[in-house]
């Protein structure tokens, strides 16, 4: 029996209460991330991947609510039942996050250095000189000049801000890093740099990571395993090469197919017809059925379960799990 997964999510349900009803952003999601593993969490906008990431840190705010599920960290910390003070101490030390749109993650009226220092001082007491040194080291680790600690966020370029945010996320040497679309808002060249930086950090610090994105190409490069989410549920989980080489879920197939059009000159651009369901009114049966070319009668009657297929793979599809 090997070491427990760094995080084990089971049966997670997160809903948002809107005027039109209950929006089920995350509807029974289970996933595990092994220690030292990079798990990619991919899907279209609105599929619930960001929400899942936030839920792991219990950062779901009203009108959202974690309705159900268990999140166990490192085999012994039950995240959802932590008290306020325990939760505060758990955050950033064990798990930290790089948020979507990191540009806005920084307080515009505080220097970058002081914000990184704040992450540390919220958990430990340290002398000012020591603090300065630690902040300097963190900045250098992400390829920034330590002297920039006294500058304000608006004085940095997008890429630099992203690096600063990553430095901040690593301030307390967390075991798990959740990165939510860390490269989306950046231009292509900088994207490459940040990606390389993250790969480098992960290797050096043996970080476990959950990399949330809709960019399947980036994931193919450096994740160990990929989970594909659709409309609040997990459609398929597989080691990266398996997923990209032989996708089993029709949705995954469709996603990859639409990618090929861009990569192959002359090939027609294609995308999966239709649109994801309204999360406040999910139809009966498989939620991908309206867009699936292989749908048959069972698909309209019951929602497929996420069941293991071969080693390390699981799929939620009636076609596969006959």
């Amino acid at each position, binding site marked *: 029996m090997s070491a427990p997964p760094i995080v084990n999510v089971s049966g997670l349900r997160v809903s948002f209460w809107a005027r039109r009803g209950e929006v089920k952003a995350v509807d029974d999601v289970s996933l595990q991330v092994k220690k030292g593993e990079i798990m990619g969490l991919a899907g279209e906008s609105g599929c619930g991947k960001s929400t899942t990431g936030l839920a792991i840190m219990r*950062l779901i705010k009203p009108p959202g609510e974690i309705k159900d599920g268990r999140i166990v960290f490192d085999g012994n910390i039950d995240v959802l039942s932590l008290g306020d003070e325990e939760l505060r101490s758990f955050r*950033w030390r064990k798990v930290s996050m790089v948020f979507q749109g990191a540009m*806005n993650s920084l*307080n*515009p*009226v*505080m220097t970058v250095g002081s914000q990184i220092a*704040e992450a540390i001082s*919220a958990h430990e007491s340290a002398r000012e000189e020591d603090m300065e040194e630690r902040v300097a080291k963190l900045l250098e680790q992400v390829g920034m000049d330590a002297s920039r600690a006294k500058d*304000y966020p608006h004085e940095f370029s997008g890429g630099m801000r992203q690096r600063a945010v990553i430095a901040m996320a690593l301030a307390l040497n967390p075991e798990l890093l959740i990165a939510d679309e860390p490269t989306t808002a950046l231009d292509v060249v900088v994207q490459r740099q940040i990606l390389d930086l993250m790969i480098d950090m992960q290797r050096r610090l043996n970080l476990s990571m959950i990399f949330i994105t809709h960019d399947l190409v980036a994931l193919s490069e450096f994740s160990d395993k990929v989970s594909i989410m659709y409309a609040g549920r997990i459609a398929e989980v597989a080691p990266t090469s398996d997923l990209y080489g032989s996708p089993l879920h029709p949705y995954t197939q469709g996603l990859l197919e639409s990618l090929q059009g861009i990569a192959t000159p002359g090939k027609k651009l294609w995308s999966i017809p239709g649109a994801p369901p309204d999360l406040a009114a999910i139809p009966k049966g498989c939620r991908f059925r309206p867009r699936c070319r292989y749908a048959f009668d069972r698909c309209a009657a019951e929602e497929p379960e996420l069941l293991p297929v071969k080693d390390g793979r699981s799929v939620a599809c009636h076609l596969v799990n006959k």
Partner: protein
Amino acid sequence: MITARYLVSRTFNALVTFVIAVVLIFIIPRLMPGSPTDQFASQYRLPGPVVAELKAKFGLDQPIETQFVLYIKNVLLTFPPDFGVSYNFNPATVWSLLVYALPWTIFLLGTSSILTAILGVVLGMISAWYRGSKLEAFISSSSMLMLSVPFFWVAMILVLIFGVFLRWLPFSGAVSPSAVYRGFSIPFLLDVLYHGILPVLTLTIGSFASYTLIMKDNMVATLGEDYILTAEAKGVKKEDIMVKHAARNAVLPVMTLFVLRVGFMVGGSILTETVFSYPGIGLLLYGAVTGLDYPLIQGAFFVLAFTVILSTLVADILYTILDPRIRY
């Protein structure tokens, strides 16, 4: 972040505005029905020699261009600015009256501005953080109520309660009428404070509401920003988030509001001084206008304009210092 260039340009701007104001103060009374010259000797029974001196100094029997030149010379180029003798309070000069009244108004406005700002910001912060609670509902309703109430009426109610029924506090004058003080002695200061409580309280109660509501709105908006979520994720304590992150950002637009409301507070002090017979510039101005005391009117507006423009300039510069994103 502030540069010398910004400081210089703002100050220059303020000076220009001030000079324009001074010119307007000259022009406007002469546009109104009943010119200064007519009001003269007959109505106010000023002694002959005084009349002659005034006519000479201000050129009141000369063409308007000469009057203007003399005016500028007396007002802007001499110190202390010479507005002549007050019609109603002669032989007291306008300047001496202003000098006596100004400190009282500054005391009133200064104290209540600070209190208002503190009260408004703190209440706004609290009502944003405890949004949805009974406390917040209470604060918001009280603020809304205060915005609908004429605050001279608030003054009257306070007088009724504390001055008439309870007889705890005085409601007239700045110091006890019969007392004689030498300089800034402790008894003097205590008396000033004693007489100042109700006026300052009134002005503060009447002004805090809009600050509270704006601060609350700003806080709520700021609390929705991403960096607040980041701070919480980092494990920063709730109180620190509220003060160091949210309030620090939310308070900035409140400062602009402050700049805009200086004029309002001046008006407020006029009403307050009237209710409490407090001998400040407001009361002086009111008496001057209704008594058609032209020199005093000019002098009072001069001082008012100066105060408003100066405080606007100070607030402007303060804001620039506080917000690191602004660069000039």
